């Protein structure tokens, strides 16, 4: 089996079709577990009260919003170096979910910020760079849709995402580099925090739920993209299965 076997859309299409229901089921199971822990097991935060429960979705959404952009950048490097069409298709398949996660991270952060900080929005380094991330997702999608020649669109999109992925470490380290209003973690996954085990498990379950959900969505979407781009191809006729 060649290393590039699954980089062909024709072989990946049925594989993605087999894989996505698994990821979707795992995502659902994790989300139900995570939400149960978040609302019925995890205690009320001694400082923030009940509103801290927003963090069980805010943190996973923000982490995955950043992570998906990095994965897109990796696919971008593969697209430019190996010239694999599937890499570009995967970038396109991941972008809408990444954009949704980032938008929801901003929305939930805003609703958490009002009662906690007294403001829906502040222009601090982390929040501003996360807003920039949302614009980058939207900009990438607009760019690849604006260029008619798919090959050129893929190259331009890959280049944009690779170069602008520098924004992701900026978001991540912003709370250390600058004196931001946005705090570091309230609930730490790595221990040494005052968080109860239930808090940690809830956050972990929700993070992996978002992760597996994003994979499921990307797999379904890449199948649609393959079908759209390769329509008329003989292997797709009569099912492609």
């Amino acid at each position, binding site marked *: 089996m060649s290393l590039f076997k699954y980089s062909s859309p024709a072989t990946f299409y049925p594989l993605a079709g087999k894989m996505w229901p698994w990821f979707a089921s795992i995502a659902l199971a994790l989300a139900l577990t995570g939400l149960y822990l978040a609302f019925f097991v995890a205690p009320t935060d001694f400082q923030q*009260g009940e509103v801290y429960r927003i963090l069980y979705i805010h943190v996973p959404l923000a982490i995955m919003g950043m992570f998906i952009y990095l994965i897109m950048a990796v696919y971008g490097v593969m697209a430019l170096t190996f010239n694999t069409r599937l890499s570009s298709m995967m970038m396109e398949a991941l972008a809408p979910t990444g954009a949704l996660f980032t938008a929801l991270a901003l929305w939930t952060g805003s609703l958490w910020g009002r009662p906690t900080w007294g403001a829906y929005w502040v222009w601090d380094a982390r929040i501003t760079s996360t807003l920039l991330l949302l614009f980058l997702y939207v900009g990438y999608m607009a760019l690849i849709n604006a260029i008619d020649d798919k090959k050129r669109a893929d190259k331009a999109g890959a280049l944009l995402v690779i170069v602008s992925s520098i924004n992701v470490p900026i978001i991540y380290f912003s709370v250390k580099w600058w004196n931001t209003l946005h705090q570091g973690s309230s609930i730490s996954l790595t221990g040494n925090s005052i968080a109860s085990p239930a808090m940690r498990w809830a956050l972990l379950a929700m993070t992996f739920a978002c992760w597996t959900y994003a994979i499921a969505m990307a797999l379904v979407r890449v199948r*649609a993209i393959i079908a759209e781009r390769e329509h008329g191809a003989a292997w797709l*006729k009569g099912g492609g299965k």
Partner: protein
Amino acid sequence: MDWADFFYMGGRGFYVWGSFGAFALGIVAEILLLRLRARRATSVNGENKK
């Protein structure tokens, strides 16, 4: 805990349910839009036979 307390969320219901509601809405919207896109894409190729 009774359900009224649960929805009241210590007086922060608006923020908590505004967050989780938007989250649910976003996920459902993405799934529906993607289903539509997948159906359209495959029907062109004659896959929707089953």
